[in-house]
Each structure stands twice: as structure tokens, then as C-alpha cells.
């Protein structure tokens, strides 16, 4: 069995475990996992940009925000999206976020590296500013409260049903993004990450590649937003603020950039620390901050990089022993 097949199998086993174990636990764990899974769609979209294209986006919360606000506004003002039309809202949420990404991308894709980070930050702040100040549409600082989740054949107000819905969306997103990054298109994104100039010389339209990746990531951000609105039951400028974008980026790095599933691990850990540890101790944020700092200092490849590191160390020490054995013979 090749390395990749082992990894895929491990992910399948882990996902099955989540699907089997979580519904049988208490409602706290179910809610926490639902939140983490919904948010990790956003984290994976960050990873497509950061890990596979080399674009550190610090404004990804804008797409989550636009999807979430769309869901909330449609549901509270027009009673739309609370039955079977929920699926239309999903489509609209993805589309509106993709359109926003298409507009933002025109401005952002020109830049790279730290400049890209800053321009996406600026664009994210534009979205936040609108959410925060456009009282008549967004409810300003108070945000919008959603009354009840959609009901179509199945009742999503039920925690377990809703968990499985989010889980389903998560698995589909993971599959789609996995297919994307392993497609020829995804490979050329990785090429751009490694060395853009060479890809240009080889005749690739690197701008268009990055632009399309940016739009796709935005679309997934919108999907995360639709799910988030129904998960949290409230949409507020908190969801669009800079720290949410920062969270998404740090979760991707914590789990391991360029691994997709790493983002889920990052999201689960951060949500776990934030929502579970915060009920136990007042100093939980020190733990969170330290986890970030230590990961960046000592684990640049993230948590998903640990097995690889251990293997490298083993092969390294193995080689050294080989050298010792061979050395006397040759001398």
C-alpha cells in the first residue's frame, strides 16, 4: 500500500469514527463538533490558498460572513430557506461568496506573499466595516438572530440530524477540494507555490490559475457561512472580523498547511480549547496562544507533519547505523 493510500484510509477511518462516536455523546460535544466541522470548511478553503497555492489569505472571514448574512437575512426577512429551499440558499451562499471573491480577487491576485496578506486583510476589513455599520441591512453590532433551523422531511432543529447534515457537507467539501488539489489544475497551483516564474515560463497563465483558486476558495467560504449561520443561530460582525480570518489561517497552519485534513484537526483543537477549556479555567487563552506560538516555532509543517518528522528521524538514525557498519569494511 502506498503512502497516499494509507493516509486516505486513515482519514476515512477517522471520519467514520467521528460519525459513529459523536452522535452518541452529550449535546455539548455534538454542538462543538458541528461548529468545528462547519468552520473547518472555511479552514480548508484557506488551506487551498495557503498550502497549495502559496497565498496567505487574511480576509477569508469575508466569505464566511457574506454566506452567513445572506442566510440570516433571507431567513428572517423573507422566511426563505427554512424548507426545501434551504438547498437554494446553499447554492446562493456559494455563488454570492464566489462573486465577492471574483471581485476581491481582481484586486488581490496581483500581489503575493506579505502584500497578498495585507490586501486580503484590507478587503476583509471592508466587508467587516459594512457588516458593522450597515445597520439597516445587517443589524449592526447586534447582528441577526435566526429563529429556528430549516425543516424539510427531516427536522434540523434536532442536534444529531443537524450534525449529520454539516458532516455530510464537510465530507463532500473535503472530497471536492481533495479532487481539486490532486487534479492537473491543483498540481499547477502547487507549481505556482513552489516557483511562479518557472510556471510562467512554461506557459501557464499563473494569474488565472490563482484567480480561479481564489474564487473556488471563496465559494467554499460561502458554504461554510451558510452552515455557520444555522449552527450558531446568530450572525454578527464577530463572524467577519479580522480575528476570525486570523483563526482560520492559524488553524490551517496548526494542523499543517497543504494537507486539507490538517485544517480539521486544527479547528477541532482550537474549538475544543476555546469552548471546553474555557469552562474549566480562566486562563485558557494562554494555552491557545502558546499552542500557536509553539507550533509555529517548532512545527512549521503543523501537527500533520509530526509523523513525517518521526519517520525522517528514524530513517536518519537508521542511515547513521548503516554508515557505522559499512565503515570498517571499506577501511
Amino acid at each position: 500500500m502506498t503512502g497516499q493510500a494509507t493516509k486516505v484510509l486513515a482519514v476515512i477511518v477517522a471520519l467514520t469514527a467521528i460519525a459513529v462516536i459523536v452522535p452518541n455523546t452529550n449535546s455539548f460535544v455534538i454542538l462543538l463538533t458541528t461548529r468545528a466541522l462547519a468552520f473547518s470548511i472555511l479552514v480548508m478553503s484557506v488551506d487551498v490558498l495557503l498550502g497549495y497555492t502559496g497565498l496567505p489569505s487574511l480576509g477569508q472571514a469575508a466569505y464566511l460572513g457574506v454566506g452567513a448574512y445572506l442566510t440570516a437575512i433571507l431567513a428572517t426577512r423573507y422566511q426563505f430557506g427554512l424548507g426545501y429551499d434551504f438547498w437554494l440558499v446553499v447554492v446562493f451562499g456559494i455563488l454570492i461568496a464566489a462573486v465577492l471573491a471574483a471581485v476581491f480577487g481582481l484586486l488581490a491576485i496581483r500581489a503575493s506573499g506579505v502584500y497578498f496578506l495585507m490586501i486580503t486583510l484590507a478587503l476583509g476589513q471592508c466587508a467587516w466595516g459594512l457588516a458593522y455599520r450597515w445597520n439597516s441591512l445587517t443589524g449592526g453590532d447586534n447582528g441577526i438572530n435566526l429563529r429556528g433551523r430549516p425543516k424539510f422531511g427531516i427536522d434540523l432543529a434536532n442536534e444529531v440530524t443537524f450534525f449529520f447534515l454539516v458532516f455530510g457537507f464537510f465530507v463532500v467539501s473535503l472530497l471536492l477540494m481533495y479532487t481539486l488539489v490532486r487534479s492537473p489544475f491543483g498540481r499547477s497551483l502547487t507549481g505556482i507555490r513552489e516557483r511562479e516564474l518557472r510556471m510562467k515560463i512554461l506557459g501557464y497563465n499563473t494569474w488565472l490559475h490563482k484567480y480561479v483558486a481564489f474564487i473556488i476558495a471563496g465559494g467554499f467560504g460561502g458554504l461554510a457561512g451558510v452552515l455557520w449561520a444555522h449552527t450558531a443561530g446568530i450572525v454578527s460582525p464577530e463572524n467577519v472580523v479580522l480575528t476570525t480570518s486570523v483563526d482560520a489561517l492559524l488553524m490551517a497552519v496548526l494542523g499543517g498547511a497543504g494537507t486539507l485534513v490538517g485544517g480539521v484537526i486544527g479547528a477541532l483543537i482550537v474549538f475544543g480549547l476555546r469552548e471546553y477549556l474555557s469552562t474549566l479555567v480562566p486562563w485558557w487563552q494562554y494555552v491557545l496562544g502558546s499552542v500557536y506560538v509553539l507550533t509555529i516555532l517548532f512545527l512549521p509543517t503543523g501537527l500533520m507533519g509530526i509523523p513525517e518528522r518521526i519517520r525522517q528521524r528514524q530513517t536518519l538514525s537508521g542511515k547513521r547505523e548503516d554508515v557505522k557498519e559499512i565503515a570498517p569494511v571499506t577501511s
Partner: protein
Amino acid sequence: MNTQFWLIQAFNGISYAALLFLVGSGLSLIFGVMRIVNLSHGSYFLLGGYVALSVIWTTGSWALSLPLAALSIAAVGLLMERIFLRPLGFDPLRQVLLTVGFAFLFQQAALDIWTGNNFDINPPEALTKTIVVGGLFLPLYRIFMIATAAAIGIGLWLIMEKTRMGAAVRATVDDAQMARGVGIDTSRISMFIFALGALLAALGGVIGGAFLGIYPGLDFEMLPIAFAVVIIGGMGSLGGAAIGALLVGLADNFGKALFPEVSYFTLYAPMALILAVKPTGLFGRE
């Protein structure tokens, strides 16, 4: 909307710009020298204000709080650069992420030490008066802010343009590798600049604390605005930071006064446009 309105708004905008210059110039210099965006810059601003509060509570002296807060936060910046950022070598993305991690740590520390209450830093009586110039009532404190920022700006400019140290900093901004090649200790320069940036941000926190207040969350509110200043002006350029501060200060004030619903949009949208057209900012060097 008479002349008075425009003049008062312009004056308020300029005094806010003075504060933004203090925060933005440090951020800009740090970017120029180290090629990183310091996402804990807002935390330095907030911590500066908090340290000043503690000094005022214990000694009762506002004048003493200025240097003490500035120097202690400069020390924090210096330690952070030496212990955590420097060992990462030249890896901007990781360094940037590290500064966010610290921003979270500082946030929690501030909450623990100074609680979650809102505080105001009260300047001395002499500065709370209002003077009348041509029929306009101008708070003396805002004039003091403008004067302080102008003095610091001119001082920084003189250091950068006229001293050997300044020349070394400029050389590092232009081409760090070349600067190292001709024997400039760029590691020491970045340590010095990072501490200086922290000092300026903390100073801004003390001065700004009088009319913004000091409260949790101010750090992540100040950060993007400081970014706007630096991005519009161009990273690594002092003159750019001054122009950027003026533009942002005025845009923010007039935006809030004229179009309150979209005021943040009027602030960040021009910034995104400028970046899109000229990624290095108006006065940035390639």
C-alpha cells in the same frame, strides 16, 4: 454644513492622524527593515495605554507615564524580536503568524492584569483647556497631539536622513542582503527598529487613551487602521506613513460624519484600491 463644520472636522481628522502616525510609522519601519507585518502592533498600543494607567494610579503623574509606558513596551518588543522572531531567520509568513500568536497572549494578559473594564487616561488640567482660534473652539489636548506627532516625525526624519545609524537603516530597507554585504549589522538594526516601533505604538496608546479610552479589543481595532496608514503611504517610508496617516485620519473623520453607515468602507476601500494599483503603496519602494 458650514465652514465651521468642515474646519472642525478637518482639525479632528488631523489630530487623529497625529495619533495614527505614531502607530503607523513604527509598523512601517518594521516592515521596511524586517519585511514582516507586525500583527501584535495593536497590542503594543493597548499595552502602552494600560502600563500608563498603572503608572498614573501609583504615582499620579501623567508626565511620568509617557516615558515609562513607552520604554517598558519597547523592552517587550525587544525581547520578542530577540527571543522569538530572530531565531526564525528570514521567514516572513511564520514571523507574521508568530506575532498573531503573541497578540492573543497579550490580549489575555491584559485582561488578567487590568480587567475588562473601560478606562480613560486623564491628561493633566493644563492640557484639558480649550483655546479659541478665529471663532473655532480647539481642545488644547488635540493640539498637543499634533505637536507631539510632528516633533517625533521630524526627529525620526532627522535621524533617518542625517545620521549614520539612519543611513544604515535606509540601506537595510532598500536591500538587506547588500547592506549585510557592506558590513551593516542588519540583525542589530532590526532589533533596534522593532523596539522603536513598539515604543512609538505604546506612546500612541498613552496619548490616544485620553480620547479613545483603553479597553479590551482596542488592540484588534487599532491594528487594521494602522495597516491602512502604512499600506496607503507605502511600507518602509516615513513620509509615506505621515501622508497615509493624514489621509486615513481625514477619511475616517469625514466618513463617520458624512456617511456613518458605510464609514469603515470609505476607509478600507480606497486602501484596497491603492494596493491593487500599486502593491507597494503610494510612496513604497519596490
